[in-house]
C-alpha cells in the first residue's frame, strides 16, 4: 500500500508556504501589538484619567522595544545553563520510567502482533512507531507544561529572574533542555523498535523434501545423465510457506510470500539440500520517483481530474475502460545513470471500480504505455492484470524489443478560448509503427529528461482510479535502518512542536490549564487535515461544499425545525446569526493556521509501507518546525516578560 496522501514537493511548497507564513506572522504581530497596547492603557487606568494616554503609550512603546532588544541579546552560555537545568529537572521527574513502560508494552505486544498476518512488517512498524510517538508526545507535554508554573509557584524563578537573564533565554533554555531529553528517549526507542521489528520478523524456512515433485520431462545433460525441474514447498513458519523451484543447474528459487522471499544456498547434508537465509525484501525503504499526473478523458482531451465514481473519498479519480481515457504521469529529470539495471521498475497501486462483476477471480486488464512528450512516439509495453490493495510491479526495459504496439499519439488540450491545441502538431518523419526496437533513453525520453507513462483500462464499463503517488518509478532502495530513524525524525519534529507550545502556554497559564491547552493543540494538530477542511468548508477533498451552516445556525434550525434544505427567513435576527457563524468560521480558519500540522509531520506512514523518507520531506518538516517555533518563541518571550511573576 503506498502513501495515500499528497506528498509535498519542496520547490512547490516553499514559496506559497513562506507567503502564508509571512502574512500570518504579520497579522499576529499587529494584533498582539494592538491588544497589548489596549491592555496597557486599561491596566494603567486610562479610563479614570485620560491624561495618562500619552505617558502610558510612551511607556508601552519603550517596553516593547526593550522586549525586542532582549530577543537579540541571547547569551549561549545562559541558554545552555538553563537547558542543563531543564534536563536535570526532567531526569529528576523520572522521565526514564516511560522507557520502562515502552519496554513493557513491547514485551506484551509480542503476544498480540501476528507475524502470520498479510503484511507483518506494516503491522509491526505501525505498532511500535505509533506507540512510541504517542508516549513521547504525551510525556513531553506533561513535563513541559508543569515546569515553568512549578518554578513560579515554588518561587525558584525569583533567583533566576533576578540574574541578568532574559525571558527569551528562559524559554529557549527550557525548550532546548526538554528537546535534548526527548531526543535521547526517541533515539533509544528508535533503536529498540528497530531491533524489535527485525527480530520479531526474522525467520527462515527449510525446503520440505516430501513436497518436491518433478515438473515436466527429464532433460538430458551433456554428461549423459538426465535431470528434471522440481517444484515443492518450504516448511511453514510465521503462518506462511514459499513455493520452491529447483532448476537444472541445481539452484533453488523461492516465490514471494507476505512481501518477501529467502535466498537459498546449496549445502549438502541438510534437509532439502539448501540452507535458506533470512527474509529478503520484507523491510524495505523504496525510493520512488514521482511524476505529475494529468488525465485524458474518453474523448481524448486533457483534464486536470478524471471522473468521479461517486466515492466520498475523492483522493483518486477514475478513467473509463475501453475508451481513449488514460492517466498520464510525466516524469522529469530522467537520467540513464539513475537506473543502473536493464529495466526500470515501475510500481503502481491503482483502485478498481467495477460497474459489472465480470470475472471476479481475475483482475481488470490494463495497459502500460510510454510516450515521448516531444514527438508523440508512443509504445505500448504490456497488458497487465490489475491487483487491488497491493503493489503491482512492472518493468520498463531500457532496450524495448518486445512490445504490443507503437504509434504516434497527439495530446489535445482545450485552450482558454475553446480551441483545441494539439501537441505535437506534426507526426514524426519516421513512422514509429515501422520501428522494430526502441531505446528508452534515446527514443522516448526527451533531451531534457522528460518521459510520459500512460495507464489505460482496457475493459469497457470498468474503471481504474488513481492519484499522483499511485504510480512511480522505483529508483532504488534506501537503508531500512536509516529509514526507521528518519521516521523517528518525524516524531522528533512533532515533539519539538509540543514542547514549544507547552512552554509558551505555560508562561501565562497555570499548569493544568496549560496542559489542557497543549493537549488541545496536540489533538488539533493530529487531526489537522480535518480541521482545515472544516474551516475552509471542504469536507470532501476537492469538492466545494456550496453552503455550510455554522454552529449557531444549526442550533436555530434544530430549535425552529427549519429543515436544512430550506432557506432561513430574511429577518435581521437570522442575518445576525449567519454573521456570527461567519465569525466562527474565520476563527476556525485562523486556528487551522495557528495549530501545527502534526499529522503531516509524521513519517510513520512512509516507513510502515516501506517507502524511503526523502531528504526533501525531512527538510520540509524542519522548515515547518522552524516556522512555528519562531513565533511561538517570541510570543513566549513577551508573555513571560509582561508577567509579574511575584504577583
Amino acid at each position, binding site marked *: 500500500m503506498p502513501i495515500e496522501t499528497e506528498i509535498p514537493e519542496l520547490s512547490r511548497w516553499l514559496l506559497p508556504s513562506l507567503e502564508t507564513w509571512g502574512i500570518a506572522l504579520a497579522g499576529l504581530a499587529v494584533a498582539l501589538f494592538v491588544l497589548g497596547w489596549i491592555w496597557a492603557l*486599561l*491596566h494603567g487606568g486610562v479610563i479614570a484619567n485620560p491624561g495618562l494616554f500619552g*505617558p502610558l503609550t*510612551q*511607556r508601552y512603546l*519603550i*517596553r516593547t522595544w*526593550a522586549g525586542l532588544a*532582549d530577543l537579540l541579546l541571547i*547569551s549561549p*552560555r*545562559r541558554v*545552555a*545553563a*538553563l537547558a*542543563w*537545568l531543564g534536563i*536535570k*529537572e526532567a531526569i*529528576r521527574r523520572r522521565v526514564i520510567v516511560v522507557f520502562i513502560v515502552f519496554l513493557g508494552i513491547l514485551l506484551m505486544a509480542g503476544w498480540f502482533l501476528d507475524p502470520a498476518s498479510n503484511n507483518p512488517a506494516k503491522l509491526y512498524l505501525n505498532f511500535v512507531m505509533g506507540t512510541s510517538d504517542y508516549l513521547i508526545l504525551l510525556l513531553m507535554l506533561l513535563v513541559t507544561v508543569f515546569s515553568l508554573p512549578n518554578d513560579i509557584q*515554588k*518561587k*525558584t*524563578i*525569583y*533567583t*533566576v*529572574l*533576578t*540574574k*541578568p*537573564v*532574559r525571558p527569551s533565554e528562559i524559554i529557549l533554555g527550557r525548550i532546548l533542555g526538554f528537546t535534548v531529553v526527548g531526543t535521547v528517549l526517541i533515539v533509544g526507542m528508535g533503536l529498540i523498535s528497530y531491533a524489535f521489528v527485525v527480530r520479531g520478523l526474522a525467520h527462515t524456512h527449510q525446503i520440505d523434501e516430501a513436497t518436491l515433485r518433478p515438473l515436466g520431462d527429464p532433460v538430458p545433460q551433456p554428461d549423459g545423465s538426465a535431470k528434471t525441474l522440481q517444484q515443492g514447498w518450504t516448511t511453514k513458519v510465521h503462518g506462511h510457506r514459499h513455493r520452491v523451484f529447483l532448476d537444472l543447474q541445481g539452484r533453488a528459487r523461492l516465490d514471494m510470500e507476505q512481501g518477501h522471499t529467502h535466498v537459498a544456498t546449496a549445502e549438502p547434508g541438510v534437509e532439502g539440500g539448501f540452507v535458506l537465509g533470512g527474509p529478503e525484501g520484507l523491510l524495505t525503504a523504496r525510493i520512488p520517483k514521482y511524476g505529475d499526473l494529468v488525465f485524458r478523458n474518453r474523448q481524448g482531451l486533457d483534464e486536470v481530474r478524471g471522473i468521479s465514481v461517486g466515492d466520498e473519498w475523492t483522493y483518486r479519480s477514475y478513467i473509463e475502460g475501453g475508451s481513449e481515457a488514460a492517466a498520464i504521469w510525466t516524469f522529469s529529470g530522467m537520467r540513464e545513470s539513475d537506473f543502473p539495471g536493464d529495466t526500470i521498475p515501475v510500481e503502481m497501486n491503482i483502485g478498481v471500480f467495477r460497474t459489472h462483476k465480470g470475472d471476479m477471480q481475475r483482475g481488470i486488464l490494463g495497459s502500460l504505455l510510454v510516450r515521448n512528450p516531444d514527438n508523440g512516439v508512443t509504445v505500448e509495453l504490456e497488458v497487465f492484470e490489475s491487483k487491488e490493495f497491493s503493489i503491482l510491479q512492472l518493468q520498463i526495459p531500457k532496450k524495448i524489443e518486445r512490445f504490443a504496439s507503437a504509434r504516434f499519439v497527439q495530446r489535445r488540450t482545450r485552450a482558454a478560448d475553446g480551441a483545441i491545441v494539439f501537441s505535437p502538431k506534426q507526426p514524426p518523419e519516421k513512422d514509429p509503427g515501422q520501428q522494430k526496437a526502441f531505446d528508452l533513453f534515446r527514443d522516448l525520453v526527451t533531451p531534457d529528461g522528460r518521459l510520459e507513462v500512460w495507464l489505460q483500462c482496457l475493459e469497457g464499463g470498468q474503471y481504474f482510479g488513481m492519484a499522483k503517488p499511485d504510480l512511480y518509478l522505483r529508483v532504488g532502495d534506501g537503508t531500512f535502518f536509516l529509514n526507521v530513524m528518519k521516521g523517528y525524525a518525524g516524531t522528533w519534529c512533532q515533539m519539538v512542536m509540543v514542547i514549544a507550545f507547552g512552554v509558551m502556554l505555560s508562561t501565562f497559564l497555570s499548569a493544568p490549564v496549560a496542559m489542557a491547552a497543549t493537549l488541545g493543540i496536540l489533538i488539533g494538530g493530529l487531526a489537522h487535515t480535518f480541521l482545515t477542511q472544516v474551516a475552509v468548508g471542504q469536507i470532501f477533498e476537492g469538492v466545494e461544499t456550496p453552503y455550510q451552516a455554522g454552529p449557531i445556525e444549526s442550533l436555530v434550525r434544530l430549535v425552529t425545525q427549519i429543515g436544512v434544505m430550506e432557506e432561513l427567513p430574511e429577518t435581521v435576527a437570522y442575518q445576525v446569526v449567519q454573521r456570527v457563524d461567519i465569525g466562527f468560521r474565520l476563527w476556525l480558519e485562523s486556528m487551522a493556521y495557528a495549530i501545527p500540522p502534526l499529522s503531516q509531520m509524521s513519517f510513520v506512514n512512509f516507513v510502515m509501507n516501506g517507502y524511503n523518507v526523502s531528504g526533501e520531506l525531512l527538510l520540509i518538516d524542519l522548515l515547518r518546525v522552524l516556522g512555528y517555533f519562531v513565533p511561538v518563541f517570541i510570543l513566549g518571550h513577551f508573555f513571560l516578560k509582561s508577567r*509579574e*511573576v*511575584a*504577583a
Partner: protein
Amino acid sequence: MSQDTMDSASAERSDPTGRGVVIETRGLSKFYRDFWGRKKVQALKALDLQIYRGEVFGLLGPNGSGKTTTMKLLLGLLFPTGGDVFVFGRAATDVAKNERIGYLPEESYLYRFLNAEETLDFYGRLFNMSRSVRRQRVSDLIEMVGLTWAKRRPLKEYSKGMTRRIGLAQALINDPELILLDEPTSGLDPIGTREMKDLILKLRDQGKTVVMCSHLLADVQDVCDRIGILYQGELKELGRVDQLVTMKDVTEIRVPRLSPQVEQELKAVLNKHQVPVLAWGNPSTTLEDLFLRIIRESEAHPGLRVHGRGDGNADRN
C-alpha cells in the same frame, strides 16, 4: 525625558552623602487587583526613598507592611502601579541592572535537586561567567559560607540554616555592588546570625550597598546605618539608626563596678541637683553575647562545662 531612565542630575542634587544614589523610588505605589481589575489590596502607597552607595539600609515593619513588595518592585519581579523605581539609574524592569545586584530571597528559593556546587555554578553561568572564573568563585564562596563539607549533597538534604548560607552564596556569586537581603537572619541560629551580621558589615566596608528588610529589630539595629519603617504600605519613619534611637533626654554613664562608698556619694550629688534616678544597677548582657561566649568557651575547652556562677558578672570575665 524618558520615563524609564532616571534624571541623574536631580538625583545628584538630593544626595547628601555625595557618594551617589543607588536606588531611588518616586511616588512608588502598588496595589494588587482582583480578576476584574478592581483594587484589592494597597500594598504600597507613594513611597519616596533614596538609598546611597555604601550604606546598609534596613526596611522595617510588621508582617504585611509592604517590605517584601518594595523589595520585589526594586528587583522588577513586580511592576509598579504608579510612580517610578530606579536602580543604578535604570528602570527596575531592565534586566541589565541585575548584573550588579545580588538578591537573597526570604526563603532561599533554590532548586532542591541540585547540590551546592551545581547551584552556584548554575547561577554563575547565568552571569555569563567563564568556566575558570566560575570554578574559583564557587569554591571561594562555599568556603566562605562554611559548606565545604556538604558541597556534594543535594540541597533537599540541607537544614534551614545551610540552605540560607547557600542562598547567600548565590547572592554573592557575581560580586555585586548592591545586595538585597530579605529577612537575612531568619532561620539562622545565633552563630549564623552573628556571622551574617559580620558579613553585612564586611560588605559595607568593601563599599557595597546593602538593603535588608527584617522584623528582627535587634539585628537591624546592629548593622543598619539608616532605616525606614513601613506600616500598612506607608513610610512612617526614615533616618539614621543612631539618631533615631538616641534618647536625647536621658543620660547614661558606664563605669567599672563602684564601691558602696562611691555609690553613696554619687547618689548624694544627684539628690542635691534634684535629678531623679531612672535606673541604677548592673546592666545585663544580651542573650546573644552570652550564648556566643558559651559556645566559644566550649569550643576551646571541650568537656563538661561548669555552669554559670549566677553572679551577674558574666560579660566581664
